[in-house]
């Protein structure tokens, strides 16, 4: 079940929009701050200029200090058209020569010696920008510093600052808008390959499990590879199933038809002796059919389990011993000597117990049924790399010419076709799934052998699994 999560597009949009908004706020604040500084800077020049002009108009006539503020000073200040103007001229003794008596400058003599002092202030509760300059009055009689203070309301500054801020904000907004649009296009672009894949999958025939052939960016390529890998596995599996079902149907249909024919014969037979023989034949056929069905089912199971990747450590010695004791029927109809040999006490391989047991049991069954005349030996051995199980009998064995053929399902080593040859093919499948090897050994001193070889679990590594170290 796919959980339908939040839209990727919406999430990305939200994150980027938030970042942009934060950025816009920061930028606008910065713009406002710089605009204020710039506006102050621009209008401070006018203010200082006007104050210097007034200071320049301070003169001494007949030993009296006087001042005649020039029109140009006021015209300079009037460039900030809507701002109110306050000013004051003091002589060296501190007496107000002209202007607003109650205007108070915050400038100190020491700060004034550095040049004009510009500061924010208040006049009659109105916020103003204020500049104070000083001028040496040269006459010896009244030697000292006269001061000129000029204050101006902040309207023009605020208007300029607002104007600059508004324009900067507009730019910031435009930039954010562009970024947002670009982001949306980018996200759509980035998600577009997914739609391509979606279309490619949708437009397929239900049976089409061939790999996807679409051109996708590197970032999406992994996804397509995974899909293709998955489809390949699916396809292989379905192929196996199809083959199995086809074969199984064929295999079961033939003995069933034969069985039905036998039963028909039985029902019309009146001779008791022949009837009895006929019944034995029906029994034989039914047993054969049951065995075949079991084998088919176990084959299906093995095919199914082969797909399971989760193997676990298996002790091959124990497994072989148990399988042998379970596989040998109580009566064989002939005396056969069964023996088990283990050259090692325990050897671990990685595998699936159930399918391994099934494979081994099938080989033993085959050997008992078609081979062993008087002797069957199961031998487990191991070297540094490998572990192997041999099933040896003293029967005729499988002719070398048929070795490859018997590995295929439904090919019996017995040309007469008494039983299905599923047993060996199951074993072949299991061994292949365990990345092992199934070999035949021609008559040696002891007889025909089927050899299963697996890779040891602790092969080539000196670090043994912990349970081996137990005493």
């Amino acid at each position, binding site marked *: 079940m796919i959980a339908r999560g939040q839209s990727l597009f919406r999430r990305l949009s939200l994150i980027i929009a938030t970042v942009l908004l934060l950025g816009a706020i920061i930028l606008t604040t910065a713009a406002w701050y710089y605009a204020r500084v710039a506006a102050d800077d621009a209008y401070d020049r006018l203010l200082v200029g006007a104050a210097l002009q007034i200071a320049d108009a301070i003169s001494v006539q007949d030993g009296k200090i006087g001042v*005649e503020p020039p*029109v140009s000073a*006021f015209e300079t200040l*009037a460039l900030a*058209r809507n701002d109110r103007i306050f000013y004051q001229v003091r002589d060296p003794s501190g007496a107000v*020569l002209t202007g607003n008596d109650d205007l108070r400058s915050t400038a100190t003599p020491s700060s004034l010696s550095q040049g004009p002092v510009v500061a924010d202030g208040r006049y009659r509760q*109105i916020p103003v920008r204020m500049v104070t300059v000083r001028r040496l009055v040269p006459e010896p009689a009244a030697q000292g510093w006269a001061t000129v203070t000029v204050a101006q309301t902040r309207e023009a500054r605020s208007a300029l600052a607002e104007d600059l801020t508004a324009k900067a904000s507009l730019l910031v907004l435009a930039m954010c808008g562009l970024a947002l649009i670009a982001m949306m296009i980018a996200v759509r672009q980035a998600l577009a390959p997914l739609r391509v894949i979606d279309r490619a999958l949708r437009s397929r025939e239900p049976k089409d499990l061939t790999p996807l052939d679409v051109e996708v960016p590197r970032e999406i390529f992994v996804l397509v590879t995974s899909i293709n890998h998955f489809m390949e596995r699916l396809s292989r599996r379905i192929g196996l199933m199809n083959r199995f079902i086809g074969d199984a149907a064929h295999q079961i249909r033939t003995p069933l038809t034969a069985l039905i024919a036998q039963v028909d014969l039985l029902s019309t037979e009146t001779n008791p002796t022949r009837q009895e023989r006929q019944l034995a034949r029906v029994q034989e056929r039914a047993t054969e059919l049951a065995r075949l069905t079991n084998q088919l089912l176990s084959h299906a199971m093995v095919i199914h389990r082969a797909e399971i990747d989760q193997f676990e450590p298996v002790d091959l010695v124990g497994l072989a011993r148990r399988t042998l004791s379970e596989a040998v029927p109580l009566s064989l109809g002939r005396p056969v000597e069964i023996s088990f040999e283990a050259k090692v006490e325990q050897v671990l391989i990685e595998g699936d117990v159930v399918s391994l047991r099934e494979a081994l049991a099938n080989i033993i069954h085959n050997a008992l049924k078609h081979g062993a005349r008087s002797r069957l030996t199961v031998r487990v051995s191991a070297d540094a790399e490998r572990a192997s199980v041999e099933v040896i009998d003293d029967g005729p064995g499988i002719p070398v010419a048929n070795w490859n053929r018997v590995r295929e399902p439904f090919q019996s080593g017995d040309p007469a076709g008494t039983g299905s040859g599923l047993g060996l093919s199951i074993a072949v499948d299991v061994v292949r799934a365990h990345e092992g090897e199934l070999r035949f050994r021609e008559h040696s001193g002891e007889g025909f052998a089927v050899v299963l070889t697996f890779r040891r679990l602790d092969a080539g590594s000196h670090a043994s699994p912990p349970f081996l170290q137990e005493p």
Partner: protein
Amino acid sequence: MLLRLIGAVLSCCGLLAGLPAVLAAEVTRFPAPGGEQSVIAIHAATDLAAMKPLIQDFQALIPTVSIEYNEYVTNDLFAAAQKACAAGESPMDIVLSSSVDQLVALVNQGCALSFRSPQTAQTPSWAKWRDEIFGFTIEPAVIVFNRTLVPPEDIPRTRGELLDLLRAKPDRYDGKIGSYDITESGIGYLFASYDARTSSTYGRLLEAFGRAHAVVHCCTSDVLADLAAGRIALGYNLLGSYAYGALRAGAPIGIVIPRDYNLVLSRAVLIPAGRHRPVGALRFVDYLLSERGQRVGREASFFFGAETPLPPEVDGPMTLSMGGTFNPITIGPELLVVQDRARRARFLEEWRRSMRGADGQ
């Protein structure tokens, strides 16, 4: 009303007692023709005769408003308005004066109410400041002459010509030149300071006036009366509107718009800050600035406009703004310099010295 009556009584008593703090105002009431619903108190430094047609036309438009017209001389009005502003509670709905520098000082002190309307938007930018003070007239400073005393060839059309005339015929015009006593007349001081700023002829003109024993008066009307009566022959820098009013009333005078440069004053109006819902005042200012108010003012009292043709019999260019000599007194912070007390003291000192210097000779 009662308070105002008491105020009037008190001011009468004050006058009787000779207290200097009380400022004289002449009060005239224009009762609402359609039944009084509200009162507008106009405090003005303008002749009632000039404002009367406007007030009556305003009442024709809005008949439920009574108008109380308080007439001052400019300096008294300024002092009263400043006092009211400092007190925070102004009894004035409207302050109207030809001494625009004083009104600008009031605006600078934060004593005026800011307001905008379609009418205020139409006012040229040089005639308003901060949307608080609005010029509503166009009044050129003119040279006026007595037609019987000044022969046509003597009529001066520039300040230079006036100087030449005084130099050429000193005896004929001795004691026959009239102008403002700028120590008393706000408008005289304003015109003189602009003259001093605009042209270098001012100093020489002042000297020439001193030598010719110029007669000075507090007010335009006094100079005009002298001119009409023939006591003087030439008047300098007189308000064109009053001069043309006298001409229309039959005075034997002629009016010349100076051709070198033409100072133009715009009489201004403001609404004191701190008035609660000054609806009547806003309407009255809107009316003054409206096309109708402008037309009525031009036809009945002020006669001049920037773009309209000059009134008949006035010697000058086709219109005031024509010919590049139109020099309006900008209503703005620049006018604060006119109010500077150190500057004023020096300027008056210089003026006195020039005038007295002539006496000393």
